[in-house]
C-alpha cells in the first residue's frame, strides 16, 4: 500500500471544509436494496426537501405528495428562480451534468425558508395602500 498525503504538506491535517464535506450524506443505497422510488418515499414521508435532475423530475408528482417547487430569487437573472442544483435523489447524478436540477419542498416548510414573490408583492401593496390612507 502506498500512502500519499492528501494535502501539500505532510501532517497538515484536514481543513474545516474537508471535514465538513466528509459529513455529506450518501443518499439512497445503491447496493440493490433500495430503489429510487423507495428513497423518495422515505424523503416525502419525512417532509424532506427533494432534488431531482431534468430527467427524473418528470416522474415525480409534487402536488400528489404535498410538495411544490423550491424558489430562490436569482438576482443575476440567469435562472427563473426555480433552479436548484445538487445530487439527484433518484439517479444520484450531479444535476449540473443532467440538464439542471429542480428542488421540491414540502408545503409546510415552504413559507419557513422561501421568500415567495407573490406574497411579497401582496404585502408591499398592502403597506403602500395603508400609507396612502393614513399618512
Amino acid at each position, binding site marked *: 500500500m502506498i500512502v500519499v498525503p492528501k494535502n501539500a504538506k505532510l501532517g497538515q491535517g*484536514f481543513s474545516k471544509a474537508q471535514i465538513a464535506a466528509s*459529513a455529506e*450524506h450518501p443518499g439512497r443505497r445503491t447496493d440493490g436494496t433500495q430503489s429510487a422510488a423507495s428513497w423518495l418515499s422515505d424523503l416525502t414521508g*419525512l417532509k424532506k*426537501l427533494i432534488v431531482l435532475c431534468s430527467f427524473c423530475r418528470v416522474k415525480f408528482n409534487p402536488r400528489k405528495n404535498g410538495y411544490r417547487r423550491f424558489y*430562490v430569487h436569482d438576482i443575476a437573472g*440567469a435562472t427563473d428562480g426555480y433552479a*436548484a442544483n445538487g445530487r439527484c435523489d433518484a439517479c444520484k447524478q450531479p444535476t449540473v451534468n443532467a440538464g439542471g436540477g429542480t428542488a421540491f419542498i*414540502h408545503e409546510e416548510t415552504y413559507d*419557513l425558508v422561501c421568500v415567495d414573490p407573490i406574497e411579497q408583492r401582496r404585502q408591499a401593496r398592502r403597506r403602500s395602500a395603508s400609507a396612502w390612507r393614513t399618512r
Partner: protein
Amino acid sequence: MKLAYHLSGGAPLLKRIKIGASFANAGIVTINGTAGVIPSTTTDFADTMGLALDTATYSSSQGASHAEGLVTVDVRPDAVIRALMSGGATENTQLTQLVNTSASTDGLTVTDADVGSADMVSGTVWCTKGANVGQSRAIATHNASQDFVVTVPFINDIAVGDEFLFCPYNEAGLTDGAGNVQTSTLFTQADASIASGTGGLATVVALELNGRGDSYVLMQLGDHVFVISTI
C-alpha cells in the same frame, strides 16, 4: 430564516448533510458538530455550512430509515439569509416602538425612555409615524433609557408623538451593526433587542425596515467553511 438570494446570482447548491443534533425547525443556520452538522447557537455561526432547509431528528440508535439523519443545506457561501427581526429572544416579539417625548427641531434626537440600555450605537432608527416616515438613520449616540442621537439629521423636525422603530443592525460597512446577528431562542429569527455588535458573525447585506412585526435583516454568514480555509 429564509433563503433570499445569492450575491452572485444563480441557483442554490444543495447538499444532504449528516446531523449531529436535531433540527426542530426549518430555516436554521448549521454549524460543524462532531457527528455532523448541528444547529447554531444564538450567538455563534462559526464554521457554518449554510442554512438548513428542512427538519431532522437526531438519534444515536439504529433506525429503519437512514433518511431521518440528514438535513438539506444550501452550502453556497454567498447565500443571503433573510431573518425576521424579533423584539426579544422569543420568536415573533414585536419590535419596541418609540414615541418621541421631546421635540427636536434639528432633527437629530429621538427621545423616549424605551430606547433601553442595550447599546444600539451603529444600529438603525427609522420613522414609522410623523413627518419623517420612511426615513432611516444610523444611531451615533445612545444615551441609555433617554434618547438616540443621529449624525445626519432627519429631513423634517421630530415632533412629540412621532413614532420610530430601531434595530442593532446597519448596512453601512465596518461598524458594529454590520457585522453580527444574534438569533432568537429557536434560531429562526433575529433578536433585534440585543446590543449592536453582538451575536454570530454575519455581514448585514440589507435591511427591510417596515413595521413592528414585518421588518427583516438580510445577512451573509461570515465564517463559512467553504470560504475560510482554516485547519
